[in-house]
């Protein structure tokens, strides 16, 4: 099912349609959102390299990790970095987001990373950021009808420096740009008011939420009884996805996730709880008269 998401991002949008947008949201109870983000990033990179995707390039807007982290991540997953100039670009909003340093002592950024990244030194100006993203994307794909994808490290960081409406504006403008094939972002839902989470869900076509494996166990005191349940929450979680399909219906899917050192694994749920959407329908019941 996580593969379904990656395939949807890979296939991109049709002509005249908004690009598919994925929100990955997690919370303190189950903080595996970043692992899911990395998984999606790696999968999409593999598709782009293999030439199977609609997009031919990827722009990563990195707020919460430095560009060298992403370079290492891709290297660990076996993706060739040396030839990566033509398909990936990292916009560095991590090192100096507010422009406090006039020059940069780039001890932290390795040689490889610096060739793949460029700095954004004013994250408060989202119009400038928008044009930077588009410029970098066009630089990757060149002239013509090709498209590129965008990954935003976390919109939680983005909204720290800008208003909700300007973040919503830049995301919807990116989605509706002709050359953007797909876009995905990470959100930590408990850092924000419900309104911001609703705004992002409104703007996206797929919402993937990471929830704790044992809902009841979270927040409880550590006792011998619930110790094993709590420990399960540290490595496992539930993955719910809501797809907005083209026919106007919503597809709801569920999987289990297991986080290991090598990465994250998705397994189908063994027992399916079927929830009847009774709230949608008026209740009709019969009364038996005896």
């Amino acid at each position: 099912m996580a593969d379904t998401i990656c395939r949807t991002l890979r296939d991109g949008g049709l002509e005249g349609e908004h690009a598919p947008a994925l929100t990955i949201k997690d919370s303190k109870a189950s903080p595996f959102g970043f692992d899911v983000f990395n998984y999606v990033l790696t999968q999409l990179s593999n598709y782009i390299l293999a030439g199977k995707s609609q997009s031919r390039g990827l722009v990563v807007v990195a707020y919460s990790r430095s560009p060298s982290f992403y370079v290492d991540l891709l290297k660990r997953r076996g993706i060739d970095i040396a030839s990566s100039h033509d398909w990936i670009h990292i916009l560095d909003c991590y090192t100096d987001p507010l422009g406090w340093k006039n020059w940069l002592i780039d001890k932290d950024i390795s040689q490889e990373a610096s060739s793949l990244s460029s700095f954004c030194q004013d994250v408060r100006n989202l119009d400038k950021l928008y044009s930077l993203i588009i410029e970098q994307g066009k630089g990757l794909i060149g002239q013509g009808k090709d498209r590129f994808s965008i990954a935003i490290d976390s919109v939680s960081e983005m909204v720290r420096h800008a208003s909700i409406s300007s973040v919503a504006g830049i995301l919807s403008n990116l989605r509706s740009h002709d050359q953007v094939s797909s876009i995905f972002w990470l959100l930590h839902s408990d850092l924000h008011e419900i309104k911001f989470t609703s705004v992002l869900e409104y703007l996206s076509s797929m919402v993937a939420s990471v929830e704790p494996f044992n809902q009841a166990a979270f927040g409880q005191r550590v006792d011998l009884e619930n110790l094993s349940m709590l420990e399960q929450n540290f490595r496992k979680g539930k993955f719910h996805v809501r797809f907005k399909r083209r026919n106007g219906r919503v597809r709801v899917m569920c999987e289990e996730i297991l986080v290991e050192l090598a990465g994250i694994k998705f397994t189908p749920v063994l027992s399916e709880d079927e929830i009847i959407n009774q709230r949608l329908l008026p209740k009709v019941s019969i009364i038996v008269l005896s």
Partner: protein
Amino acid sequence: MATTKPRLSSFSRNLSAVSSSQTPGVKCGPNGTMFVSSGIADLDKILGGGFPLGSLVMVMEDAEAPHHMLLLRNFMSQGLVHGQPLLYASPSKDPRGFLGTLPSPASLKHDKSRDRESEQEKGLRIAWQYKKYMGENQPNFDSHRDNKQDYCNEFDLRKPLERHYFTRQRVNCVGIQDSKNLAALQEHCASFLAQHQRNDGSCALAGRIAIQSLCAPQCEHSNMDWEMLSFIKSLKGMVRSSNAVVVITFPPSLLSLSSTKRWQHMADTLLSVAAIPDEDKELAKLLSGYQDMVGLLNVHKVARLNTQVPFILEATTFSIKLQKRRFLVLECLNQAPVDGSSGSSYGTSGSCSGSSKAGTLDF
């Protein structure tokens, strides 16, 4: 009583035959109101004629489905086909581009009768689906078919509206994303409505205003709750004294609960659309015709101008279906009754005694 043959009785009132012949697309209704069509024949029927001129219609969107766009498209197309001026406001970068997605009236060769019998055997009629069959015994709409064709067209969603419709008339498109507040939109609406002022009796030409996703998050005014409310209030006041209808769609999930309540109170006619889950086996068992459904429409309030008599609806929830993927129809839900004691649905068997849990009901 004239229940089976309304046309022959001298007591029947042929309201739909009295249409304003000078003004295309406007129909006279009870209590001195005039109606314009919503573009969807079923919706006009449900609302008792259409949208009354001078009223404010609000549609609550579902964040997970674009069904409100279907309603807007039919509304706008109907107005353009009748030559009624249109003002369209949207938060997208290119509002004019939306006009290219408006549907065209279906060609007359299309068979307008709804083939409900085709899927079912003639002999078997399922008892709790009786409402489906009641429509067959009402011949009175056929006689006014010619008038109905003029008043409300059947739109083919796959055929785009010809360009001459929206270059010939005044179609004004306004983008609301980039403006700081709603003052510009308010001015546009005020000048539009000033051209459609209601004089005594005569109706020159009806106007339509369509505002899509008024509180869309990318607009700067989306966090100014009171500004938006006062905009709606002033718009409602202006439209009351004019020959126009305003349709506003908005996603209630993006507003605070108290704001949503206030917006709902402002509306004369309040509708909402809802998404339905895909490939849901339980829902497929519960509802007949689930395969063709794309969503649900709820009618919360129906406008009653110049009268205190409420409009009682038989049903408030309707399914939105696309017939042959082209024509929008609204149908009453045919829901299998749920057994009160065990909670199981009779939809699986289709007859009252087929349930395997009948053991508890054995006498």
